[in-house]
Every structure is written in structure tokens, then in C-alpha cells.
């Protein structure tokens, strides 16, 4: 039983990270129906920037929490600028282009960002300096650390903040309106371009937060880390119903749990035929099954307004 509890904790932490990254995909997709494939790279840049700031401040004598805070802040700002630039330079000119064109642009941008990161931060794995003294707690035979607690609570906080932003603020209302009917929204006085740029900026800020979390949780960073993370998070977003905030969160958590429980139990259930070597496909199999019965994901609109 303690194993199950432990796996649930593992899955929850992983899922929280996935959910945050997935929100970045969903923010953008929800509004303009674009899969921003470069989002994983934005997360990577977020991690890298935070790393640089933290390392350069590490000897300044500031308190570790403050350093971490500054690192997070700087990385959020950098990613917001990056998100804005991506939209402005790469995607906006293609708003009326055939559907696959921005997809290829996104892939191109992701190659560019990876290689820029490689030039700046080098090819080697980078050790993310542990700023928080890791405490290990135990409950019922399962253990977790204060970093995990911080990650899950920060993720929850950010998600609550996002829900507040989208449902309670003026810009959030404009975003939802644009997502549902851009033409009418513009008639209400909403500047569509600004709203779309905002979606990119907010999504990238979330990516930066996720990047800092990944960095401080695994304490390792590499210029290629964004690809897999982005892919998983994208899967999570689709699982939940891409374009839907609650869906992205649920999809992320679910994916984290599927991976943990899948790796933990499927092997025993199938006589080790499907062991943890198939860990990476459990998510896809669940995704395919879900989509067969709910073609728009768990929380997606049944009749999508975008074909």
C-alpha cells in the first residue's frame, strides 16, 4: 500500500509539471488554434535563464530563497519577451496561411532555439544548483521532499491564478471572447492582436515557471530537455481537450499518474511483457483510447467550433 501511495505522490509531482507546461500549449491553441511546437523550448530557455541567474547570484550572499525568487522572476520576464517575439515574428505573419505552415515554422523555431541555447549554455548537462535544503518527509511509508511540496503548491497556485485571470479579469474575458468568436469580440472593442500576443506571453510565463520547477526538482538541465517535456505536455493537453484550461490541468495530472502507475504496475499485470520499457507509450495508448470515445478529449467541446 505504501508503494501505491508513493507512486501517487510521484505521479502527482510529475503531473503538476506536465500540467503547467500543457497550459502553455492550451492557452495559445484555445485562442488561435495553433500548436506552438516551440513551447517546450521556451520552457528550456526558462530553466537555462534561471540557472544562469542563480549561479551568478549564488556567491552574492543573498538568501537562497531570494535568489531563487530573482531567478524565477528574470526567467519569467525573459520568456514573456520570447513568447511575444515568437508570436510577432514567426506566427502573426502567418495568421491566414494554410494550417500546416505555422506548424513548420514552429518546428523551425524550436530548432533555432535549441541551437541558440547550445551556443550560449554549451552541450554539457548543467547541474542546477540546489538552493533549497532538501528535507525528506515520510507519511505511511511513502516519502516526499519539501521541493515536491513547493512544486505542487506553486503549480496549484499558478493554476488558480490563471483561472482567476481568465475568468475574473478584463483581459481574461477578452481572451475567452476571442477564443469563442473573434469577429464578435472585435466588435466589442477587443483588439484581437493584443489578446493573441497576451496568450503567448502568459503561456510563456507559465512555461518559465514550469522550467524553474523542472530545474529545481531534477537539478539538471540540458539544451535538449524541452523536446520530450513539450511532447508529453502536448499529449496531456490533448488528452484533456486542447484549448481547455481545466482539461490541460486534468490531462497533465492524469498523464503523470498514468506514467507512474503504468511503470509501477503494468509489468506485474502483464507478466512483465509490458514493463517499464513501455512507460512512454502508456500515455499514448490511453490517449488513443480516450480519443476513440471522446474525439475532442476529456474536457473538449463535443462539437468543436474549429475544424
Amino acid at each position, binding site marked *: 500500500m505504501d508503494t501505491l501511495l508513493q507512486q501517487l505522490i510521484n505521479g502527482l509531482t510529475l503531473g503538476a509539471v506536465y500540467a503547467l507546461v500543457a497550459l502553455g500549449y492550451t492557452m495559445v491553441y484555445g485562442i488561435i488554434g495553433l500548436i506552438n511546437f516551440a513551447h517546450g523550448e521556451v520552457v528550456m530557455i526558462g530553466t537555462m535563464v534561471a540557472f544562469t541567474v542563480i549561479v551568478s547570484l549564488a556567491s552574492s550572499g543573498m538568501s537562497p530563497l531570494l535568489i531563487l525568487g530573482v531567478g524565477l522572476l528574470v526567467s519569467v520576464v525573459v520568456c514573456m519577451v520570447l513568447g511575444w517575439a515568437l508570436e510577432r515574428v514567426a506566427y502573426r*505573419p502567418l495568421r491566414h496561411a494554410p494550417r500546416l505552415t505555422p506548424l513548420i515554422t514552429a518546428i*523551425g523555431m524550436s530548432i533555432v532555439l535549441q541551437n541558440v541555447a547550445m551556443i550560449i549554455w554549451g552541450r554539457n548537462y548543467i547541474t542546477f544548483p540546489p538552493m533549497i535544503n532538501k528535507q525528506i518527509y515520510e507519511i505511511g511509508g511513502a516519502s516526499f521532499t519539501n521541493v515536491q511540496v513547493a512544486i505542487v503548491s506553486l503549480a496549484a497556485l499558478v493554476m488558480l491564478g490563471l483561472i482567476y485571470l481568465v475568468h475574473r479579469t478584463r483581459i481574461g474575458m477578452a481572451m475567452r471572447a476571442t477564443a469563442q468568436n473573434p469577429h464578435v469580440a472585435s466588435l466589442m472593442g477587443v483588439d484581437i492582436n493584443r489578446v493573441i500576443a497576451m496568450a503567448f506571453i502568459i503561456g510563456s510565463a507559465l512555461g518559465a515557471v514550469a522550467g524553474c520547477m523542472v530545474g529545481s526538482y531534477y537539478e539538471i538541465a540540458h539544451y535538449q530537455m524541452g523536446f520530450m517535456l513539450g511532447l508529453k505536455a502536448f499529449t496531456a493537453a*490533448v488528452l484533456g481537450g486542447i484549448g481547455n484550461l481545466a482539461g490541460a490541468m486534468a490531462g497533465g495530472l492524469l498523464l503523470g499518474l498514468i506514467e507512474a502507475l503504468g511503470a509501477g504496475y503494468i509489468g506485474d499485470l502483464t507478466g512483465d*511483457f509490458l514493463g517499464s520499457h*513501455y512507460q512512454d507509450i502508456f500515455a499514448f495508448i490511453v490517449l488513443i483510447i480516450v480519443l476513440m470515445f471522446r474525439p475532442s478529449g476529456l474536457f473538449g467541446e463535443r462539437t468543436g467550433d474549429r475544424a
Partner: protein
Amino acid sequence: MNGRIRSSVSVSWQRHWLGLLLLAVVLLAVPFVAALGGQAWVRIANFAILYMFLALGLNIVVGYAGLLDLGYVAFYAVGAYTYALLASPHFGIHLPFWVILPLGAGLACVFGVLLGAPTLKLRGDYLAIVTLGFGEIVRIFMNNLNAPINVTNGAQGITLIDPIRIGDFSFAQTSTFLGVTLSGPQKYYFLLVALALLVIVVNIRLQDSRIGRAWQAIREDEVAAKACGINTRNIKLLAFAMGASFGGIAGGIFSAMQGFVSPESFSLMESITILAMVVLGGMGHIPGVILGAVLLTGLPEALRYGIEPLQRALFGRMIIDPESLRMLVFGLALVLVMRFRPAGLWPSSQRRRELAESAD
């Protein structure tokens, strides 16, 4: 009038014999001209044709039928492994290529239908992620099917795969006949060109056929296509199956050419690259797709040769190491091409017009 509709190949043969003759000369000359710069260029040309194969296959699915497939590499893998398993010491089976290639194509077809059947009702982006997942599933199975029964030899891959051989004439060795010395890659070049011409003809004929019209109709307006009596599900599955079979053949040739396969050749990035060739070149337009395949295979290689001298010429020294810059330039090229030619480098005339109209 009828002639225009039928657009028959025979008409064009007659009208353009001079151009075709020129073309034949060029195609014949390529491996020898390329070899002047090194056999590596012949190999690059070979991979360019191989990718052209794959891109034309994917073009049927994405370009003709309008279905976004991000897992195309799965069919390539199926073809490659079919060849590898049936012509290597792994199982001790050594079938000739003319048995295995069609078999690989057929098997890839089956996989195409298997993938298509449950997913066809999904909308574009959902279909994309499911096909992506399918590609990963196939790759991961290839990577792990070494236990409990060793089928694929897992990540270690399969070695000593037989080259393509016709009688005693092996494509792997250098040999001389009629006074001309041909290296292995050069021989494969001619084989590939022959197959490529075949594939192009098949592509054109499919496009100009009842089936091709049905694909285009589905892409234009699925509801109207149904109302015209087209069984859209079957026709879409047919697109998947046809596209997959091209992938299967390409996989088989890849296996034979390399003599070694392992799952790392069939990563998601491969699918994305093939899709990029289709889109960058000009979706649905055969010359465009060919151009896309050749450019995206050739560009990184040309940059490999060119970026170092270029940097030296510009700055007098190496500022950034060439490998980082090479991929950076490649990525930028993708972005810039899409920015300034959103319908691709060489779109069909109708695509170009479509875009022009939707833009204003």
C-alpha cells in the same frame, strides 16, 4: 478538350521528348558528376531520393487527402524491419529483395489501415497527435521486442543485412562493366532513380484518377464529397494505405543500403522532417514535394561543407563552432521560407491562388 482532361502521359512523352532526353542525360550524369566531389555526394543524392520517396508517400496522406500524419516514420520502420529480418543472419533467412520489398510494402499497408481505422473521425490536430503517438509506439516496440522472444534485437539493431542483389550482381560492391566503373552508392543511385520515376508516375496517375479526385474532394469539402456518394472513410483509409506502402518500400531500400537498422533511425524527428519536406516544398504538388525533399536533405549537407569557409570569409575566423551554426541556419531557413512563401517553395498554381485570395 478530352485530351486536356485525360492529361495522358503518352501525350507528354511525345511533346517533350527533347526535354525528357535532356533530363535522362542529366539523371545519368549526376552520379558521375557528383562523384567528382566525392562519393559522399552520391550517398547524399541517394538519401535525397529516398526521402523523396517518403515525402511523396506522405504527400498522398497530407497533400492529397488532407490528413495530418505525424507518425509516418512508423511505416518506414515497418518496411525497414521487414527487410532486415528476412534478409540477415538474425533469423538466418535470406530472401531476395523482390520478394521482401513488396512484402514490406504490403505489411506497411496493413499498418496504415490499422492506424487509420480507429482514428479517422478525429479532427486535424487530434489526428496529428494520435498518429504521432502511433509512430512512437511502433518505435518503442522495435526497441523492446528483444524479450521475451528476440524479434527485433532491441536497441542493438540488426546487422549484416544483405545488400540488394540481382543474381551475382550485388549493389554493395564496386564493379566495372562496359568499361564504366560503378561504386556501390552509384549503383544504388540508378536503382533509386528507377524506383523514384516509378513512384512519381504512380503519384501522378493516382492524382489524375477517380481516386485522386475523390481525395481532393474530401480535402475540399468532406460533407459535399459524401453527398456525391464517396465513401469517405474507405477513401481516406486508402490514402493511408497507399502512403504507408511507399514508406514500406523506402524502408526496405534503406535497410539494404545501410546494412544495419536500429530503432534510432525511426524517431519522431524523422516524421517531422518528412512532413517539413512536404509542406516546405509545396503540399500536394509533386515537383514541390520533390524539391522539398532534395533541399532538406541537401541543405544540412551543403552547410556542412559551406559554413566553415563562409564564417572565415565573413569574420576571418571561427566565431561559433560550425555544427551549432549549421542546425541554427537550417532552423532559420525553415522559418524564413514559411514566412515568405507560406504555401511552400513551389506550390501548385491553385494553392498559390487559394492563399492569395484568403490573404486579402
